[in-house]
């Protein structure tokens, strides 16, 4: 399987994970280790940056994990830039999952503010991975603004509904010059496998692993699904046939002698 490179880092695992919603930090740690994930996102608001022994960070102190701080809670570009700078200082990484959702109910990303923030943060030297709508034009603009990857949503965050935006994801993948990470809404390993089969470079999963009855087993299940989907993509899936082959070809008469 081909390794994935984003900015200065190369990943063997194409499964990125979230760290919220687990019943305990210990369970989160075990599940994420089992998932093989090498990039884990952490909400800045959940971390106590003044605390040496922060409970969440303590459990993520493995070589396997690269931290991807996220800006969950900010409502506009200005706040995002401010939070990003604090995250960079506190967590010692210039990687950032940019999340700007002024709507706390559905947590849908603000495309306008996200684009502004991406531009500003890229200039400040951040490796920006913006969480955005599955909007192909917006993704191209993000690329131009300096995003290191784009993270279009599959369906509303936490909904477990899968790839409701499939048609747009396919266009985004077709057009993108930066890695495409399908984020949000992936509720089952089959959804993750599907995203990989259509050529997504990675997926980000949280709720489906965290709230399952057995998050460790679910972490493994997603690991296998992502690998399987990627393998299928690299091996090239057969084209889907849209209609049955006509038994008597419509143009056969052209070959017939008159």
């Amino acid at each position, binding site marked *: 399987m081909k390794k994935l490179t984003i900015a200065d880092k190369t990943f063997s695992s194409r499964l990125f994970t979230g760290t919220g919603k687990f019943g*305990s930090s210990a369970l989160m740690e075990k599940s994420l280790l089992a998932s093989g994930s090498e990039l884990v996102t952490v909400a800045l608001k959940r971390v106590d940056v003044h605390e040496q022994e922060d409970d969440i960070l303590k459990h993520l102190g493995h070589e396997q994990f690269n931290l991807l701080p996220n800006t969950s809670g900010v409502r506009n570009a200005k706040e995002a830039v401010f*939070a990003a700078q604090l995250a960079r200082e506190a967590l010692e990484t210039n990687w950032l999952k940019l999340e700007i959702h002024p709507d706390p*109910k559905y947590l849908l990303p603000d495309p306008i503010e996200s684009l502004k923030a991406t531009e500003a943060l890229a200039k400040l030297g951040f490796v920006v991975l913006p969480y955005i709508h599955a909007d192909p034009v917006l993704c191209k603009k993000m690329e131009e603004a300096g995003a290191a990857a784009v993270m279009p949503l599959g369906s509303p965050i936490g909904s477990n509904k899968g790839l409701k935006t499939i048609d747009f994801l396919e266009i985004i993948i077709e057009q993108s010059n930066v890695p495409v990470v399908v984020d949000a809404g992936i509720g089952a390993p089959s959804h993750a496998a599907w995203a990989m089969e259509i050529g997504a470079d990675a997926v980000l999963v949280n709720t489906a692993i965290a709230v399952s009855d057995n998050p460790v087993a679910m972490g493994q299940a997603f690991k296998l699904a992502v690998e399987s989907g990627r393998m299928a993509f690299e091996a090239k899936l057969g084209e889907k046939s849209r209609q049955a082959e006509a038994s008597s070809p419509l143009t056969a008469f052209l070959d017939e002698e008159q």
Partner: protein
Amino acid sequence: MSFRTAFEQENWEAIKASIYNKTATQVEEALSKEKLNLEDFKALISPAAAGYLEEMAKKSQALTLKRFGKTIQMYAPMYLSNECQNICTYCGFSLDNKIRRRTLTDAEIHEECKTIKALGFEHILLVTGEANKTVGVDYIENAIKIAKGYFALISIEVQPLDENEYAQLMVHGLNTVLVYQETYHKEDYKKHHPKGKKSNFDYRVDTPDRLGKAGVYKVGLGVLIGLEDWRTDSFFTAMHLKYMERNFWRTKYSISFPRLRPAEGILEPKVVMNDRELVQLICAYRLLDEEVELSLSTRENQRFRNNVVKLGITSMSAGSKTNPGGYSVEPESLEQFEISDERSPSEIAEMIKSNGYEVVWKDWDHVLD
């Protein structure tokens, strides 16, 4: 249109009748839907839903897990003052309750903050009565500034303020405002609040609109259960919530369902809501709204709290003191009401963990203010 305009088009008795007339079939319909409306909510809080409690609890649990995961947020109330110019028939701080009053000084606020912080809390709820001369908006602003040095998230439960006053407090680190209507029964509201600024029903019912306009991040709604028919009052709370979500979509919401508790010199509840009914209400709110935070205080007893952790609740207080200085400065001052669950914050945290849930002490950072 303000909420009050919409509210004034409704008739209490008609709403009450429509709730009590809901049938089992309507409950089943509501349970089979993915998106519920206020009519479905009526069915779920109606007597007809009593037989569907287990099914409601299962759905509520699943929806809460999906949105909030296995987590419970913790907060502590910190009473700053028990001075009050209002007469409220149900409250220990009522003006006609002739007991010595006290308001914390700066040094005392620091003391209380230190004690509460040492218990592990990062989310603080500052509470006062309504005494505008001594505990006006400037006093509250000062208290917020002090508390900000200790806590990650600051909420207040104080007298309703004007829009510009809320905006002023936001600048200094305010995050959340809780303002309970007590009851949406306008005539009975007057009976329960015969004297003081609080007797102005309209100003109070307009408060969430002002909070929305002022850009307060989170608004807590609710009624005091025991004053009036809880089903009708809860319907109006839900209607208020839906109005707010539509009009102030940037704001987060939480709901509380305080049941009237014994306090110095207060009335007996007019309506008693039993535990089954409170569970029914919690689940009905969750089924109506997957995203709303549901909060449960130490008014409820140990056994009840242990069991509802998994049913839809998302935040809890623990080890609460309802008197100013109650944590360290003056433990014996006049309290607002007697709490029921007297366990310490660490005991509550252990209980939450033993249910397989993570205790979330911190879910905000002043960098986001």
